[in-house]
């Protein structure tokens, strides 16, 4: 029982053991790490927290306990060992949890290792509260799975669900580690370490399998009642696990995505802020540049001089030097000086450019306000290039009012500004910074962008396109926005206005690029989740298949047992000639067992009905059975009758029919026995006795009389039974008498054997002593007398022995066996060898058949007959003895023929009598008992013996034996 159970749970147990070993291996690994001062072994990465020494110890304990428990037999010793280990883990686990809630850490947890490091302010070497709760829960499940079977379903389910929750929780922690976004690393609470999560996952899986195996056992008990619930439970477990794995994967991925998004957003914000700062500074610098000319008295005076006298070469030269120096050192594309009329006086590089409306507008404004103004990005009509210009009035040196001219500092944005804006701190495929401004109801893109040529000052998008991050920026949003960019591609962007300017900065990146690494992670998780689900499915399938196999194996076993039972019952029915039957009162359906069919001599597939069944009864028996069945159905009376049936093959049979009523099931059922043999035996007993015959006649007469007088058969039956009983008693009495006389005979022959031989021996002894001691004193005659006495007494001894043999033959029971007559005759001839060797006999012995009979007695027959043949041929010069047989009317006829003295057929009738002899003692010695014995033995074997002979012409002795197989 124990053994078979262990093999049944083999797969489950191996898995549990493996889980236990892995769990303790992780604990051991961490412990080794602490011992070797290599906490890396306990953490797997410098960024992560290591497993606490106390945690490692607990893993070693509970893992080893789980592994051992799966291998050891269930007994009290294992039970208490497991119980104590479970408590040893559960109790401190709970204490550690409570203490760490208050962020009080016990130094005992470090197990004597000197650990003082911290990780991001979190103390190392202490157990995480999550780990502590995990230990308490695992220990609880461990204790719940302790008992051999869980009787109550609720407890089984609690265990199962708890184990499932454990598996899923630790799966989640593991996922988080796997995505490099470990959980709880940002709070004050100590997070569980990576090896801790791994070890817990294995431990929880091991416990889950334990719980499944147990609940499987419980469910199996339930399913024994016919309902097959096993697959549902396993399906449920699989669904739970799958859902858990999926949720874990999803949550972990979401966490990762969130983290990643935050990182990207931070990056974008940083970039946009940086750009805004840079642009502001740039603008300020440009204004600073302008100050070189603005309110510069020496420059103003030069301009004044020059504008008064355009031929003042010195002034012109000096102005040119100024302009050139500023343009070259501050990277201005062009600097020109206009007079109040708007005519260009001097420029660097020297090239005449037509003043445009735009110029005159701004010039006018500058002249009017007397302040420096920016001309935002514009396209120069002359060379169709994009520029930015700074306009500044050249003020009168005395009152700083009344401008005398306008200086225009033109900037080529391609030289510095665009590269500055477009510069991205890290390489990116899609990231870029846009600078925009509002232009009427449109967004105007000011710089050249990555994915559209000539966009600067050309690309305009209406403000109605609200999903555009640029539009969002213009409409006042600051910070991170998500939207569709100018290409129609979803992007994430950081938008910000550049202070003191009409500009907005949009630092944007395609969502695709952001999600590229994310999708890598996504596929990684999908593969991991897929593998886990397949693994879980496979594991659950294995356990299910095993449980299923066991279910079917048990069904098969019980089916086999049922088959065997049926076979045995059938065999028992066949041997006992007893069959069963059942009749449904409502459906009228009748069922016969095979033996009942055999008794009726119908095919075993015979479909009986109550009418068909009754029709098998002999006419005299039919009303009896009809009434019996009727009463049993209507009045629920049982019946027990012995009746005659006529079988399908027209054989008359006596049957014993017993019927009972099962009221609850509304069935009449019973047994049916073939008692023909018993009846025949009873008949035979009747026949063997004259009295019985007479009694039968009387009973027949009385039966007929009674039949005519009384209709009730039962009275007749009773009478007959009573008479039969009397007769049976008489048979018993007679048998007892016979036995008594047989015993007397036995006692008689015993005393003959004992007492009759003693005096003979005495006679012989004393004569011998006489002969020995007084031989000399006797004369010839006396010696002759003494010899005669000796001979006579010896002969009498032989006579007594033969007679006893003869009497024993009569009394002896036959012990029948199959006999090879050839072997028997060889043995007889061997025993007679001492006589045969002195003679010359021609033997003619046919190959004889196998017969059935008593070996010793048949051997005596052949010994007597062969001995006789040898004896009575001794006067023949050429003796011939032949042994033959033939078959006639189911009998073997054996014949032993000799060519000896023979006898006169006149005396043939005396031949087989006791002490009857046809020859004188002097001629042929003998006791006259041999042939009497032969006849007795052959008669006992249901055969006949006779002889044919003629005087001096030899004799033939015949005897028959029936051909029987058994």
């Amino acid at each position, binding site marked *: 029982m124990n053994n078979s159970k262990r093999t049944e749970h083999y797969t489950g147990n191996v898995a549990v053991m493996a889980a236990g070993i892995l769990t303790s291996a992780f604990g051991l690994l961490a412990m080794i790490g602490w011992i070797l001062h290599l906490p890396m072994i306990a953490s797997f990465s410098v960024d992560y927290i290591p497993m606490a020494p106390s945690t490692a110890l607990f893993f070693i304990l509970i893992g080893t306990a789980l592994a051992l428990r799966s291998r050891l037999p269930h007994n009290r010793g294992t039970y208490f060992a497991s119980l104590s280990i479970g408590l040893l883990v559960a109790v401190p686990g709970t204490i550690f949890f409570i203490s760490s809630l208050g962020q009080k850490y016990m130094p005992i947890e470090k197990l004597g290792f000197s650990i003082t490091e911290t990780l991001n302010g979190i103390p190392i070497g202490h157990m995480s509260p999550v780990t502590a709760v995990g230990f308490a829960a695992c220990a609880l499940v461990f204790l719940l799975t302790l008992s051999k079977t869980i009787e109550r379903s609720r407890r089984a389910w609690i265990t199962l669900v708890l184990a499932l929750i454990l598996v899923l929780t630790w799966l989640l922690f593991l996922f988080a580690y796997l995505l490099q976004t470990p959980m709880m690393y940002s709070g004050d609470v100590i997070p569980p370490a990576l090896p801790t999560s791994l070890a817990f996952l294995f431990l929880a899986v091991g416990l889950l399998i334990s719980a499944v195996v147990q609940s499987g056992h419980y469910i199996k008990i339930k399913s024994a009642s016919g309902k097959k619930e096993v697959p549902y439970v396993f399906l449920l477990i699989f669904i739970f696990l799958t859902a858990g794995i999926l949720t874990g994967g999803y949550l972990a991925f979401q966490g990762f995505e969130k983290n990643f998004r935050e990182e990207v957003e931070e990056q974008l914000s940083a970039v946009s802020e940086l750009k805004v700062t840079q642009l502001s500074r740039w603008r300020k610098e440009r204004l600073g540049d302008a100050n070189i000319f603005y309110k510069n008295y020496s420059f103003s005076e030069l301009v004044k001089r020059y504008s008064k006298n355009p031929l003042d070469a010195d002034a012109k030269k000096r102005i040119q030097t100024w302009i050139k120096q500023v343009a070259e050192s501050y990277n201005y594309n062009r600097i020109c000086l206009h007079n109040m009329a708007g005519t260009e006086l001097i420029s660097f590089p020297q090239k005449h450019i037509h003043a445009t409306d735009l110029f005159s507008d701004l010039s006018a404004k500058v002249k009017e306000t007397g302040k420096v103004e920016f001309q935002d990005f514009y396209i120069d009509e002359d060379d169709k290039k994009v520029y930015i210009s700074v306009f500044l009035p050249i003020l009168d040196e005395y009152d700083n009012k009344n401008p005398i001219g306008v200086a225009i500092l033109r900037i080529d944005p391609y030289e510095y500004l665009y590269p500055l804006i477009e510069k991205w701190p890290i390489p990116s495929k899609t990231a870029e910074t846009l600078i925009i401004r509002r232009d009427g109801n449109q967004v105007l893109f000011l710089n050249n962008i990555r994915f559209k040529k000539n966009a600067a000052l050309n690309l305009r998008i209406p403000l109605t396109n609200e999903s555009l991050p640029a539009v969002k920026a213009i409409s006042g949003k600051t910070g991170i926005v998500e939207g569709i960019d100018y290409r129609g591609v979803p992007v994430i962007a950081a938008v910000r206005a550049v202070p003191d300017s009409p500009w907005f900065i949009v630092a944007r990146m395609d969502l695709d690029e952001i999600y590229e690494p994310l999708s890598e992670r996504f596929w990684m998780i999908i593969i991991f989740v897929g593998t886990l689900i397949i693994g879980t499915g496979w594991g659950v399938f294995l356990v299910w298949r095993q449980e299923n196999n066991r279910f079917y194996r048990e069904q098969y076993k019980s089916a086999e047992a049922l088959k065997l039972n049926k076979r045995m019952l059938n065999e028992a029915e066949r041997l006992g000639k007893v069959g069963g039957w059942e009749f449904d009162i409502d459906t009228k359906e009748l069922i016969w067992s095979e033996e009942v069919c055999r008794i009726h001599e119908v095919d075993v597939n015979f479909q009986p009905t109550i009418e068909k069944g009754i029709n098998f009864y002999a006419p005299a028996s039919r009303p009896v059975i009809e009434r019996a069945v009727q009463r049993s159905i209507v009045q629920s009376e049982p019946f027990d009758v012995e009746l005659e049936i006529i079988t399908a093959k027209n054989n008359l049979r006596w049957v014993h029919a017993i019927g009972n009523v099962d009221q609850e099931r509304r069935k009449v059922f019973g047994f049916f026995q073939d008692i023909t043999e018993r009846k025949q035996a009873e008949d035979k007993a009747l026949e063997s006795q004259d009295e019985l015959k007479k009694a039968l006649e009387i009973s027949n007469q009385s039966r007929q009389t009674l039949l005519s007088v009384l209709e009730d058969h039962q009275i007749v039956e009773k009478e007959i039974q009573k008479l039969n009983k009397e007769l049976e008693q008489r048979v018993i009495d007679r048998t007892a008498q016979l036995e008594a006389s047989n015993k007397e005979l036995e006692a008689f022959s015993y005393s003959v054997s004992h007492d009759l031989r003693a005096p003979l021996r005495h006679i*012989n002894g004393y004569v011998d002593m006489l002969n020995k001691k007084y031989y000399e004193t006797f004369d010839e005659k006396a010696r002759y007398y003494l010899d005669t006495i000796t001979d006579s007494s*010896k002969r009498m001894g032989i006579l007594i022995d033969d007679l006893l043999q003869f009497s024993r033959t009569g009394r002896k029971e036959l012990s029948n066996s199959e006999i090879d007559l050839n072997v028997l005759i060889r043995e007889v001839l061997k025993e007679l060898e001492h006589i045969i060797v002195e003679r010359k006999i021609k033997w003619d012995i046919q190959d004889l058949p196998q017969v059935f009979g008593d070996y010793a007695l048949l051997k005596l027959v052949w010994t007597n007959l062969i001995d006789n043949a040898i004896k009575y041929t001794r006067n023949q010069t050429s003796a011939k003895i032949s042994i033959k047989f033939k078959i006639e009317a189911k009998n073997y006829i054996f014949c032993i023929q000799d060519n000896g003295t023979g006898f006169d057929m006149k005396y043939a009738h005396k031949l087989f009598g006791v002490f009857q002899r046809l020859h004188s003692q002097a001629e042929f010695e003998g006791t006259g008992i041999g042939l009497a014995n032969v006849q007795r033995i052959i008669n006992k074997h249901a055969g006949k013996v006779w002889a044919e002979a003629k005087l001096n012409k030899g004799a033939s002795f015949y005897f028959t034996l029936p051909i029987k197989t058994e």
Partner: protein
Amino acid sequence: MMALRTILLAEDNPQDVELTLEALSTHNLANNVIVVKDGVDAMEYLRYEGEYKSRPKGDPAVLLLDIKMPRMDGIEVLHSIRSDEKLKTLPVVMLTSSREEPDLKKCYELGVNAYVVKPVSFNDFIDAVKQIGVFWALLNELPTKE
């Protein structure tokens, strides 16, 4: 020369006793024969009871036992001996006229050492008794008693 040991002969018929002693005397074995006339005497002899209370200590080398005896027959004697802790190793030879199968069977079931049917011929009888006497009284070794 081997020491002659006692032979206990239980036989009720005086003629048989005489003939047996005669047979044993032809081999000088007769002097060591103790004759008892039935089973009761035989048991008393063996158990130092009654008449044999003060007989010298020692078991006979062999008990020659007739079956048909008054009071207690040979088979009963054999049964008593075999169920007696002190006597059960005693060699017992049935010396009887009966060759009845039930007797033979019963004696062997009870653990007889030999079963000899007395032959009618005196010469054969002498031969048989001689062999029994020589074998049991001279040759056979018994385990020493504590």
